[in-house]
């Protein structure tokens, strides 16, 4: 198992790491038992993600995918962010080892979870828009495939 240079770069110099006190969209996925937790905080104005921060407990791939995912949605509209896939995050990082694919899934889910919170806060049911925001078991299932 070896990480690409891009993964190591994002792990060593993560972009957008930290807290965002005036966030109006916050999502957290994963759990401690599984060893990965990602928290994404966004400031959204007129459906544009003007700022985004993350905090991650997890392996190098978990940190790198969080960092890359925040880069890929920052400055974009909510609708564009909803189209972000784990495959796109992986590709942007020049790939991940097979056992780490679930980290990119978690990053996609963390973004969706934050966007679901954004809709919830406006009294809009996010499920039809955002879809299912998975949980840790989803990662386990991916591993088994």
């Amino acid at each position, binding site marked *: 198992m070896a*990480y690409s240079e891009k993964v*190591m770069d994002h*792990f*060593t110099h*993560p972009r957008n*790491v*930290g807290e965002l006190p005036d966030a109006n969209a916050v999502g*957290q996925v994963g759990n*401690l*038992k*599984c*060893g*990965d*937790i*990602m*928290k994404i905080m966004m400031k959204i104005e007129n459906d544009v993600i003007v700022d985004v921060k993350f*905090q*991650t*407990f*997890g*392996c*190098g*791939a*978990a*940190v790198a995918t969080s960092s890359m995912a925040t880069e890929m949605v920052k400055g974009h509209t909510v609708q564009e962010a909803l189209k972000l896939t784990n495959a796109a995050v992986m590709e942007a990082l020049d790939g991940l080892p097979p*056992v780490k694919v679930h980290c990119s899934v978690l990053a996609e889910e963390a973004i969706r979870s934050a966007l679901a919170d954004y809709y919830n806060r406006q009294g809009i049911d996010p499920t039809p828009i955002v879809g299912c925001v998975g949980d840790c078991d989803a*990662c*386990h299932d991916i*591993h088994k495939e």
Partner: protein
Amino acid sequence: MEDRFVYADNAATTPVAAEVLNKLLPFYTTEYGNASTLYRLGQSSHAAMENARREVALTLNAQPSEIFFVGCGTEADNMALRGFMHGPNAKGRKHLITTPIEHHAILHTADALEKEGFSVTYLPVDHDGTVDLEALKQAITPDTALVSVMFGNNEVGTLEPIAEIGQICRSRGVCFHTDAVQAFGHVPIDVKAMNIDLLSLSGHKLNAPKGVGAIYIRSGITLQPIITGGGQEKNRRSGTENIAGIVALGEAARIRREHMEQEIVRLTTLQNKLISGVLERIPQVWLTGHPTNRLPGSASFVFAGVEGESIVLDLDNNGICAATGSACSTASLDPSHVLLSVGLSREVAHGSLRLTLGAQNTEEDVDYILERLPRVIERLRVMSPVWKE
């Protein structure tokens, strides 16, 4: 301190010592004879091999005729378990006793034996990783053929009460195997005084190369061979002998034996400095394994709020090589079976780190780790959504 390279993963493997390398090289170039041949070139290889056998035997207080060279520690473990359970000394008994903190070379072999119809009991260990001797006494039944308990644990460093286990097994007429891959050459081992019947060891944990190991088989015990062929190693282990590796193992054993006392004192001093330094400088960190009865040079911890693979990667960015039992470092999502067996929760076990010092490490190395590790943990904790001071 300036950036430096610190190899602190000596439980994973060690560099080949310069003296050992010098001794082994001719056996690849000028002394390349097959030890089974009659001419002088081959007999010279044979003599070198027998000299190495004496060195390994001396280090264990065994007879040279009780030492058999193999390819690695895993092979020795497989020979001991499969060879004994299928061999004549098992006398039809089908029960094996071991522990949940063994290396996978033992655990997966025990699994395979279970599938073949043998029964296996796993003894409980306490929070320090020490095997429960009372549980051992109770687990032995008339059907028990073999007990296998490791000498020193590779993940948490705990040294097991081998002499006591040997005494119990001998008095109950049960054979005793110990996986001494981490311990051989690092702590004194006396197979006679400790009543050890079978013992596995590996070269690359004591500054010999990878690809050579040995098994001690007490005189009178016959293992069914798991590799058959030309009948080398008195039919115990066929296959042309790895003379260069065997010579290296013998030389490494000799060096270790002659310097063991000083090296134990030196490494224990460095280990104590490392352990107390980490516990003093970093909040919410715990030592894993036994607080004092440990393999010399071994320091293992769990850190709250950070994940082990990240610690290892960030230490690597600082030039430090270390290991973790975190799930993320493996193909599965489960943290180390050893850490779970000593009673750590999955949450805590994810933040594990193992630093193992060896012959090449100095006090400056420890100082450097003590400077860089707190920074690494701090950086990762700042990033962590679950870290609370």
